[in-house]
């Protein structure tokens, strides 16, 4: 689950990540695999020879973590504040690197994702997907199935979500314990350079020193002012995931990932939904074409209506025999437009960083709208714009890309750096998914973003699309709704963005995100083989449909022969971008 703010946030990430990204791709073929880690060319051989030794260290650390003092007189090599998915990913990788690691958790292991986010919501969406299928008589009939009546037990659905969260939480805890990560409970505060204090109410506070510190404190639901949360009729995703009620009519404020997923759940369970979106268009973070199709598939045929270009300036919970009242004002003129009366309101206006009480003032760090400022290596920047040594911030708390797996990837990137290997994470290779029915997924740039970048940097882009209607497996499942869209550089074949709406889109995106991460170009990936019949052929067809700009052949323009210099240049360009180049080597 991610905030609606993600689009704008990721836009900034593009600017910072853009330069570094193309580098790995340009490297000669043999080293390309390393592009994922972004290592300096010298590292790979070293790394391979070291691996067994480091593994041994890791095992030793796992067995004796706690007894062995961290090097250089520190209690730990790495202390991570926050045991969400980001902290967990960092901790696991740190142990693998032989670092003595502790993780401080002030709430529950697993953080938002596992306890109040992606994980329980997937349980609810699993239910909604099945309800949808069973309710779709037309769909069932065309498959030859007869379903007489369907219903659900709200409490049992809620329990499923809750059980899933507990299960994943204990898996996470166990995996860290098994590796020997010290799990310290309490609220962590940075008291000085490489020094953290933690403790909880009623217990004496402890202070530990660490060679490196990672802040991974995540985020909480953002509630705009004027909105009164009572947890029963006006609530955030935190409450909604408990599914304590299924209102007849619920307004969802915000039409990003969270709002969209909940609209899928609520409408499947019988609610009617009204979206309130501040921007002029629903699903503002998505590629416009995908958003348009998503509206046709996920909004229009369902019991959903919407108000766009309006703010919910005031929301009052249901009380004294009155329903929930939502005052809408025009987003531009701020004039009162309408008052909605609904049974419940879900506030899904994004997420705010949870960085209070971290003691950042002790080290001269000022948050920006609550976010901890970091550079492209996740190093925390102080008020003067200087890097604070040995302090990193990952995940929602830095706001670069508010996704659980992004936090984890950032954590791994940080551990790589503190293990002595420079690493810059390519945020454009991080996929995102919205688990509606059908799903939406994306990686890289949207078409408008790609066009903007192309204009700025002076190259051309091409766009190809394929439909799920042409895919055998999708048709067998009777789920032909959906498209996949590829945006790539017309000259080099570099993949800039892939967007999918359709059955299992969230699982399909990884071929594209891996291609971006590894720098694989369309002219190469199109030769990869996909099992038939599978949904993955949607992407196969997409890659095969991509055509590069024809190389300039002098004969093709007899009326205006190119100047010799241009000729040489075009030859070089052609040589550089030729697919055969790698094969020859």
């Amino acid at each position, binding site marked *: 689950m991610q905030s609606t703010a993600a689009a704008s946030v990721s836009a900034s990430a593009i600017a910072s990540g853009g330069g570094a990204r193309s580098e790995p791709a340009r490297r000669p073929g043999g080293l390309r695999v390393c592009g994922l880690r972004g290592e300096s060319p010298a590292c790979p051989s070293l790394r391979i020879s070291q691996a067994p030794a480091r593994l041994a260290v890791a095992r030793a650390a796992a067995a004796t973590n706690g007894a062995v003092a961290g090097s250089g007189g520190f209690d730990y090599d790495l202390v991570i504040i926050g045991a969400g998915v980001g902290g967990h990913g960092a901790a696991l990788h740190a142990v693998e690197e032989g670092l003595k690691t502790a993780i401080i958790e002030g709430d529950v292991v697993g953080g938002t994702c596992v306890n109040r986010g992606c994980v329980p919501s997937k349980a609810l969406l699993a239910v909604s997907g099945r309800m949808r299928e069973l309710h779709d008589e*037309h769909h069932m009939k065309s498959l030859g199935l007869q379903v*007489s*009546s369907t219903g659900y037990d709200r409490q049992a659905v809620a329990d499923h979500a809750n059980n899933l969260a507990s299960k994943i939480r204990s898996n996470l805890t166990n995996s860290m314990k098994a590796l020997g990560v010290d799990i310290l409970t309490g609220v962590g505060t940075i008291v000085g350079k490489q020094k953290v204090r933690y403790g909880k109410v009623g217990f004496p506070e402890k202070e530990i020193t660490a060679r490196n510190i990672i802040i991974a404190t995540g985020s909480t639901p953002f509630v705009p002012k004027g909105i009164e949360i009572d947890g029963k009729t006006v609530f955030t995703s935190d409450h909604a995931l408990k599914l304590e009620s299924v209102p*007849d*009519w619920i307004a969802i404020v915000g039409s990003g990932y969270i709002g969209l997923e909940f609209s899928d759940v609520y409408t499947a369970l019988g609610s*009617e*939904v*009204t979206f309130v979106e501040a921007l002029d268009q629903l699903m503002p973070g998505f590629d*416009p074409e995908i958003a*348009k199709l998503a509206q*046709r598939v996920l909004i*229009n*045929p369902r*019991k*959903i*209506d919407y108000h766009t270009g309006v703010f919910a300036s005031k929301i009052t919970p249901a009380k004294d025999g*009155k*329903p929930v009242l939502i005052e809408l004002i025009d987003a531009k003129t701020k004039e009162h437009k309408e008052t909605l*009366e609904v*049974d419940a309101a879900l506030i899904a206006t994004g997420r705010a960083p949870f960085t209070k009480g971290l003691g950042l003032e002790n080290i001269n760090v000022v948050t920006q709208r609550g976010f901890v400022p970091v550079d492209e290596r996740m190093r925390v920047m102080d008020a003067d714009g200087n890097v604070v040594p040995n302090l990193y911030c990952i995940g929602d708390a830095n706001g670069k890309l508010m996704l659980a797996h992004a936090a984890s990837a950032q954590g791994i990137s940080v551990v790589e750096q503190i293990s002595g290997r420079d690493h810059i994470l390519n945020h454009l290779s991080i996929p995102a998914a919205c688990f509606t029915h059908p799903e939406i997924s994306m990686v890289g740039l949207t078409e408008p973003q790609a066009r903007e970048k192309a204009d700025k940097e002076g190259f051309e882009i091409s766009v190809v*699309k*394929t*439909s799920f*209607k*042409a895919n055998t497996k999708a048709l067998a499942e009777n789920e*032909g709704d959906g*498209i996949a869209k590829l945006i790539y550089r017309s000259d080099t074949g570099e993949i800039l963005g892939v967007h999918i709406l359709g059955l299992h889109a969230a699982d399909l995106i990884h071929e594209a995100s891996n291609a971006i991460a590894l720098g694989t170009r369309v002219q190469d990936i199109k030769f990869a083989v996909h099992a038939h019949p599978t949904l993955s052929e949607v992407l196969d067809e997409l890659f095969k449909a991509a055509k590069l700009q024809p190389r300039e052949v002098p004969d093709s323009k007899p009326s205006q022969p190119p100047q010799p210099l241009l000729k040489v240049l075009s030859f070089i360009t052609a040589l550089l971008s030729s697919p055969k180049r790698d094969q020859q080597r």
Partner: protein
Amino acid sequence: MATAPAPLSLSASTLPARLRAAAVPAGARGGQTRRGRMVVRAKIREIFMPALSSTMTEGKIVSWSAAEGDRVNKGDAVVVVESDKADMDVETFHDGIVAAVLVPAGESAPVGAPIALLAESEEEVPLALAKAQELANGQPQQAPPAPAEDAAATPSPPPSPAAAPAPVAAGTKGIASPQAKKLAKQHRVDLAKVTGTGPYGRITPEDVEAAAGIQPKPKPAAVAAASAPVAAPSAAAVPQAAVLPPVPGATVVPFTTMQAAVSKNMVESLAVPTFRVGYPIVTDKLDELYEKVKPKGVTMTVLLAKAAAMALAQHPVVNASCRDGKSFTYNSNINIAVAVAIDGGLITPVLQDADKLDIYLLSQNWKDLVKKARAKQLQPNDYSSGTFTLSNLGMFGVDRFDAILPPGQGAIMAVGASKPTVVADKDGFFSVKSKMLVNVTADHRTVYGADLAAFLQTFAKIIEDPESLTL
């Protein structure tokens, strides 16, 4: 999104590239939809919003490929329509001149609504323009030019009885749920005229459907069939009454719960193989007895029920039923259900243990049951525990009729009026006696012809010598 109008060209192979707009001569536009309001006009054709998908209810005009005054040929794309699924080029069926665009780009129209007028020749363009004017004027005040459903909706005002609990808070008036709004648009129901019955006086989808005269979707029927597992195997095979096209001008009144239950039971009964046996019975002695016990509050109904119960005691198979198609279910009690017409329906209060209780107690029970039935306070056990049903239409002068066997019972007796009849006795002497005809419908899976005949014989004996009834 500046490039939006370009039709989605994802896969020309799978999406039908062009749909044909149904452009039919206005005068000839047929079927029931517009019957009556058609005036035959010369060669001006309407271009209608086509249905581009099975779920499409309205379409948005993305752009007009042809402008007013353009000459178009059959097969030309004239308009790009955005449906709930995709943008598509829509082509015309006819040659002609686009005389008037009724729905400009950017606006939406319901499926089937005219979106442009096509004139066959230059001369007809003014005519078409006049018609366009007429259509434009007609639109706002008059009830919208009706697709089929409206025909029923417009003349019959929304059922008012439900309006009684007027929404208290005046502020809530006119608030409609998202689906209610969608349905209102689809069926062209004016939400201002719909009384909301939902929470806080809100207009629910059901309210809109009621206002549009739409019967609830067949969903409940499916649920009902499933919830009655007894009848399920056969009931599933019973064709649900096909929904016939609505009759223009007719008033549609949805079934009350009771009527729906009757309807369901009657349809289910079609799955039972029944047969009928009639029997004439002389009632002079019964009438005499009736005159005697009448002052004590005993009714004819009770006497007949008692007689039936006594006969059933001797023929338990007629009191049995077939519940699973494989076995006899012999009931331990004899409970006589008696059909009673009540306002707007029919109910069958049950005289429990009619064979064991005497006629005076039965009469007392019957009085209570009838009182409860009128007040609609019968408990399920009071009307659903019958093992045999008695239906008497004699008081109307009906001489014989044929009853439908209710599900779960083995037999039902239909009693006609007792009438003076010339009767020849076994010695050949004629006399005039009161005679009534009873007709029993039974489930042939459990009750065979001879069983029923024997039961009727016993029943006749009891009636003809009714002293035993008072014992």
